[in-house]
């Protein structure tokens, strides 16, 4: 509870609230419909089309958020859906949207692209939103603060940076983050808080 309040205060400093990803949080009927599509796609790959159409945009944005090349993002996104379709027979419903499984494939494909040096890992930051979670990020000292923030983000471990991106740059819920990173919702919450504190300490240190 205390953690929630702390993070909520940071996010509401300028009266802005955290919007959750509506594609992730779906109704039971929407999830059921997804299941129908998945079962049909297992029998006939051409029935994967509705799922492709539904998730192409969020997956593409997820990929492009992490790289700087539009064409490369397109290639990686295509590869993600190819992998998903090739392995759809292995998919098992676990009470969460299909997107969680897609995001995991996306994470894996991105890491592979970075390892193969096909793409440079990129962190895209909206400076207007930074002050929502870093109090001392003053816009009148923007250039200096940008440098400080770059250094602070570079000092984080890859999995820590990933969490910061998902929570504070992409505004995903803890539940969604938990599913993507394969941890519990509570764990995602606690880790976000700790990593944010670490980031702020590094940012504020001389």
């Amino acid at each position, binding site marked *: 509870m205390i953690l929630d309040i702390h993070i909520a205060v940071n996010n509401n400093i300028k009266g802005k609230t955290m919007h959750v990803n509506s594609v992730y949080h779906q109704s039971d009927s929407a999830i059921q419909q997804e299941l129908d599509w998945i079962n049909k796609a297992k029998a006939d*790959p*051409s029935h*994967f*089309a509705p799922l*492709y*159409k539904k998730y*192409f*945009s969020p997956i*593409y*944005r997820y990929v*492009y958020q992490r790289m*700087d090349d*539009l064409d490369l993002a*397109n290639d990686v*996104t*295509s590869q993600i*859906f*190819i992998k998903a*379709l*090739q392995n759809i027979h292995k998919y098992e419903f676990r009470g969460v949207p299909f997107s969680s499984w897609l995001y995991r494939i996306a994470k894996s494909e991105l890491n592979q692209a*970075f390892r193969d040096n096909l793409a*440079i*890992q*990129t*962190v*895209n*930051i*909206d*400076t*207007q939103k930074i002050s929502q979670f870093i109090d001392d990020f003053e816009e009148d000292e923007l250039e200096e603060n*940008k440098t400080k923030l*770059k250094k602070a*983000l*570079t000092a*984080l*471990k*890859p999995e820590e*940076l990933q969490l910061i991106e998902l929570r504070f740059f992409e505004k995903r819920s803890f539940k969604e983050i938990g599913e993507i990173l394969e941890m519990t919702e509570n764990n995602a919450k606690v880790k976000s808080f700790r990593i944010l504190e670490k980031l702020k300490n590094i940012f504020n240190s001389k």
Partner: protein
Amino acid sequence: MSKIKFNFDRKPLSEDIINSKQDFQSILNTVKNSPKKTWTKYYYFGTIGLAGLAATIGIFKLIQNFDNIADETNVTLKSNEITVFVADHLADEKTVQLAFNSPEELMSSAFVTPPIAKSKKANIICDTKSDSNELFVDTLVIPIEVEKDSKQNKVSCKPAVPVIAGVSSGNIKWEDFKSNTIFVDNDYEIKQFSIQYTSKSGDRTIVVKGNTISPEIIKELEQVGMNQTIFISNIISASHSNDLKHLLSMELNILFK
């Protein structure tokens, strides 16, 4: 961390641009045309299946050749000797040492070289002078009363399976394990056994007289309090007429929860 590029305030992509990138047909064609992995092809399974079947039959036949437990091995003894039964698969050196007092007896015994031939005689000398009621692991001095007129005692090689709460090997609940004795059948009573387990101070092998796991051992196992596998071996049982039987070992997985 590997090289990272930072972009501040990059212009976000419009939904129209993203939608223009969609091409499901291309995805479908790629999936349909992707080469099938070798292990998913029918002839792979056919070949592997046949090879596996041949290997299984071969191993089965091999095991059958080594399996002499069910055969009758009669050990005929002279006067002032005891009848000792040892199953072939237990005929290792340690087992033999339990039954003999000298290396010569060991080498001439029927139990050294498996498979054991039928009706082979064995000289097993027992120390009848000892008035001790104790049983010792290393020499197995067993004070028994021996009938003066020799009598051939023939014992069939039917393997005897000791149990604790009905379990001879495998999983056993802690509550069943600690409150029970080792039982064979109504004709035999366990005289001695070795128990091997892990205590807080390390692995232990204890020789126990009688047929009950001693309270000290129970306490040590309880102190560890974690599931573990224990071994009960060198189990010696005696009939009402003091015929000794060396029983099959037990491998028990104690489950605390």
